[in-house]
């Protein structure tokens, strides 16, 4: 495995430094012929972006087509997940590096879904697609055809890192992090700016939630802020406790995956669950408490 080499000095301060890789490190690995057999997966909001050019050797992992159940609002089951991984040449122990657009929202979401299936060796490319391109690194339109890998059918284990509506109702009074924009938190906006199709019947937030828009965890270039800066926001300013069970939510669970990643893997919180039903469920549900 590639563990020792992913320890970029900048990452050493984080709780789980091996969950991040830098663009420099990835470029070096690829130039060296990818000796450790890393699989690079691109996960974007825009379903065509991968096809316009991607990191050489990278394959597409689409949140809608590959990770969501086509009928029920839920994630795919163990068999479909195994097929999606196998087709991309990912085995159970393969090191997967995820990256994408929008400061890695969907890459973090994909990493979180992989974590539901217990795939431990998944990392984010710090800064994502935008940083790779800003640095003038190589892109290609060539789509690789990897040999299928053996991937076991494993049951999804939601309980440790995924919260459902009833879990959140039972959690009321405990720490909640609302990562949406300030207008969505206050209830002025029923949807995210520019995303009116994902609206809700009621505006506001879950009672007791703290407003920490996801982007506060990111630098201008999409990389994560330093541990000290993150602690200043989540610990000192918001008073969150790394030992206390915490729930993060947004609108459909993708921006809160980004915050879940920050709290869990960068700050070492012990029990963070992502409420993927988020405001599109809570803001449309009958008789759940709403605060404005």
């Amino acid at each position: 495995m590639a563990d020792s080499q992913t320890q970029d000095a900048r990452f050493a301060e984080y709780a789980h430094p091996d969950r991040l890789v830098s663009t420099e490190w990835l470029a070096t690995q690829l130039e060296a012929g990818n000796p450790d057999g890393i699989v690079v997966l691109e996960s974007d909001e825009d379903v065509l972006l991968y096809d316009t050019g991607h990191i050489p050797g990278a394959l597409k992992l689409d949140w809608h087509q590959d990770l969501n159940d086509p009928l029920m609002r839920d994630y795919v089951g163990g068999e479909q997940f195994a097929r999606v991984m196998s087709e991309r040449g990912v085995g159970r122990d393969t090191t997967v590096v995820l990256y994408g657009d929008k400061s890695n929202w969907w890459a973090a979401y994909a990493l979180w879904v992989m974590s539901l299936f217990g795939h431990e060796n998944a990392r984010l490319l710090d800064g994502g697609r935008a940083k790779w391109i800003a640095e003038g690194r190589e892109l290609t339109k060539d789509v690789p055809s990897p040999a299928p890998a053996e991937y076991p059918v494993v049951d999804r284990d939601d309980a440790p890192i995924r919260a459902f509506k009833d879990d959140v109702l039972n959690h009321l009074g405990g720490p909640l992090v609302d990562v949406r924009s300030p207008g969505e938190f206050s209830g002025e906006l029923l949807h995210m700016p520019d995303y009116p199709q994902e609206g809700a019947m009621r505006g506001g937030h879950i009672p007791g939630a703290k407003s920490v828009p996801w982007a506060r965890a990111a630098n201008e270039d999409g990389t994560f802020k330093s541990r000290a800066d993150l602690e200043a926001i989540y610990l000192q300013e918001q008073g969150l406790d790394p030992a206390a069970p915490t729930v993060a939510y947004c609108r459909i669970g993708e921006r809160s995956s980004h915050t879940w990643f920050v709290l869990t893997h960068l700050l070492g919180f012990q029990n963070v669950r992502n409420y993927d039903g988020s405001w599109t469920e809570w803001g449309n549900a009958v008789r759940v408490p709403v605060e404005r």
Partner: protein
Amino acid sequence: MTAVETADLPEALAEIARDFAELPVPERLQLLLEFSEELPELPERYAAAPERMEQVHECQSPLFLVVEVDEDSAPEPGGRRVSLYFSAPPEAPTTRGFAGILHEGLNRLTVDEILAVPEDAPYRFSLADAVSPLRLRGMVGMLSRIKRQTALKSRV
């Protein structure tokens, strides 16, 4: 193969709908990508003055559009030719692809032809499986704005 209703679409749009329907799902994405690449550049008068265009808020990425009705093209307003202009960033290829379909299918049609395009035309391109129905609503928003601007700008 997907059976797709095209009888009430303008011919150019119907042809695009048939082209998509004939392709397997992954190749539909490639065709959409081609449409995104073929979207014409904005003429200088809009590139230099983006505030003259209207933003389509239903799109998940910034998209602006404007229509022009050519008053010299016919005496009756309903027969006048309509030109369409779109602006979307290269990092939003799906949105650009939707714009490219509408440009190829509707540009230089008459006012009456544009106003007669059914509201659900965006669902006739067999793209729901490939890009998700949620994303398709952006194209619905574009079409409704094209029709509204055409109606407003063709009034005598």
